[in-house]
């Protein structure tokens, strides 16, 4: 543990290259490849840090002025998933997230408790996120590691449960989405769909995705959204024309650059992720597997885009008027597709149902994001993100507002019992699914022989 703490103490821009290099050697990538990968990941990290600096330093003062002028208490800046993932991977637990995620996945495959092989190592940042928050909250790295372990189980079980939708509705054969943001909302969509079905009048409301996209499509482009929001907040802050327009262009810059610098991090991780995937695939017995992929594959679906376009202003409105919320939604407004993309198949593409459920889920999520923001901010500081003195607090919608974040945090308050309890519940679901599948197979083969 001492060595680990020393390496983490070097700061993520040094630690991540070392960890990635060592992990690369472990999964038998070429040393030169492992070295390049490590360095590129470090570069991506520094790049994200720069862009977040721009975001916090320019939007922060505007948010402050808006708060003192209008009295809306939105002082916590939503820095978005790119920063959240970098902060997560940059934590002590984050350094272990990839081995933990892969290890749990292989073990569950071995015992037949999942059918998903997650080759999307990038998205292990979700378990790093909850792990990092819990370790800060409890002061125990071991608790953080257990959190990451349990969170992996939850995500894999939910990926199996939603696989049929990914395959049938989105049309990706043999694919599932072991994605920390998208999968939990499936469990919210199921009961909501029953509710919608039982209310006469609401039952038949629909909205046409193509029309919405045609009318509002331009606002869905991240840089345009950044410009509009930046300028809008400048006006609300009472800034002059020059300051307001500058803020608009700065926010457009953030929106355009965030995915660009994040893709550098991704580029570094890719060769290692492939080497690890090949190694695991080689060792596993041939059988019917789902390949675990990023739910980004579903983001372009018309119903997903249309619902997002409608949800962006609704979420901003909720944030302004929801008592107890302090989060100013910003960078993750364009990440809403990830929140709703596994609701959409449950609602059979019904935009109205998706928007209502999304608004409720994100509204509740804003409270979660507000609650975790002190831990989030100290995780960011631990990861070497620099904030000016007295700067705003930060948080994010993805995964700051995701139900599993709340579940893991509150479970950790009960100690190991809480965390392990949740793990057992999800393992029980997995084992029930396994038995059900075995029974179905037996019946169909009996039918065949008869």
């Amino acid at each position, binding site marked *: 543990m001492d060595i680990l703490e020393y390496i983490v103490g070097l700061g993520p821009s040094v630690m991540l290259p070392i960890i990635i290099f060592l992990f690369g050697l472990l999964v038998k990538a070429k040393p030169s490849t492992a070295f390049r990968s490590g360095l590129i990941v470090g570069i991506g990290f520094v790049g994200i840090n720069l862009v977040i600096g721009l975001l916090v330093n320019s939007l922060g003062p505007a948010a402050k002025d808006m708060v003192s002028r209008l009295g809306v208490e939105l002082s916590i800046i939503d820095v978005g998933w*790119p920063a959240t993932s970098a902060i997560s991977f940059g934590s002590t637990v984050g350094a272990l997230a990839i081995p933990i995620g892969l290890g749990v996945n292989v073990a569950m495959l071995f015992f037949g408790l999942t059918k998903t092989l997650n080759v999307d190592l*990038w998205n292990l940042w979700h378990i790093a996120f909850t792990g990092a928050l819990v370790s800060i909250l409890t002061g125990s790295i071991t608790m953080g590691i257990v959190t990451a372990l349990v969170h992996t189980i939850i995500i894999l079980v939910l990926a199996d449960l939603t696989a049929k939708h990914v395959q049938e509705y*989105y049309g*990706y*054969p*043999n*694919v599932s989405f072991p994605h920390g943001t998208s999968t939990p909302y499936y469990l919210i969509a199921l009961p909501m769909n029953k509710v919608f079905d039982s209310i006469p009048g609401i039952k038949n409301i629909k909205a046409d995705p*193509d029309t919405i*996209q*045609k009318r509002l*499509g*331009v606002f*869905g*482009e*991240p*840089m345009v959204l950044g410009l509009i929001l930046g300028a809008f907040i400048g006006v609300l802050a009472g800034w002059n024309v020059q300051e307001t327009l500058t803020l608009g262009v700065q926010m457009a810059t953030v929106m355009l650059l*965030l*995915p*660009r610098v*994040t*893709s550098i991090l*991704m*580029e570094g991780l*890719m060769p290692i992720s492939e080497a690890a995937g090949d190694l695991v695939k080689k060792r596993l017995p041939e059988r019917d597997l789902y*390949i675990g*992929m*990023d*739910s*980004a*594959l*579903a*983001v*372009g*679906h*018309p119903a997903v*885009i249309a619902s997002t376009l409608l949800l962006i202003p609704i979420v901003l409105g909720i944030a302004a008027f929801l008592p107890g919320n302090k989060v100013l939604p910003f960078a993750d407004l*364009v*990440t809403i*597709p*990830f929140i709703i993309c596994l609701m959409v198949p449950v609602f059979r593409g019904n935009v109205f149902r998706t928007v209502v459920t999304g608004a409720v889920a994100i509204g509740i999520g804003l409270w979660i994001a507000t609650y975790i923001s002190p831990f989030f901010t100290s995780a960011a500081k631990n990861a070497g993100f620099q904030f000016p003195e007295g700067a705003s607090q930060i948080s994010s919608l993805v995964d700051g507002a995701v139900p599993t974040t709340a579940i893991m945090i509150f479970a950790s308050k009960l100690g190991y019992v809480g965390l392990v309890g949740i793990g057992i519940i999800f393992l029980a679901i997995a084992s029930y699914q396994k038995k059900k599948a075995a029974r179905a197979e037996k019946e169909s083969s009996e039918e065949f022989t008869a």
Partner: protein
Amino acid sequence: MSKKIAVICGTGAATSTIIMNKLTKFLEEKQIKARTTQSNVNAIANSYEDYDLIVSTTHVPNSVTTKVINAVPILTGIGADKVYDEIEKELNS
């Protein structure tokens, strides 16, 4: 004139990076000259006219009239060769 390809996914950060990398290698091997740009689905809905070909890992709106090739097989590895063939054919046409 070399053709312009947009490589896109939901965010312009994750899966499109993987496709970008593999596609660039493929184009080098085949010595096909083309200009590649990484982007996201929301941006492409407004700028598709600037490109000759769109290679995407996600659904693209119906309003986009540029030829779109589905690149998911390149991610999963199942049927990737067919996708590369399709891209090559499109670029040589």
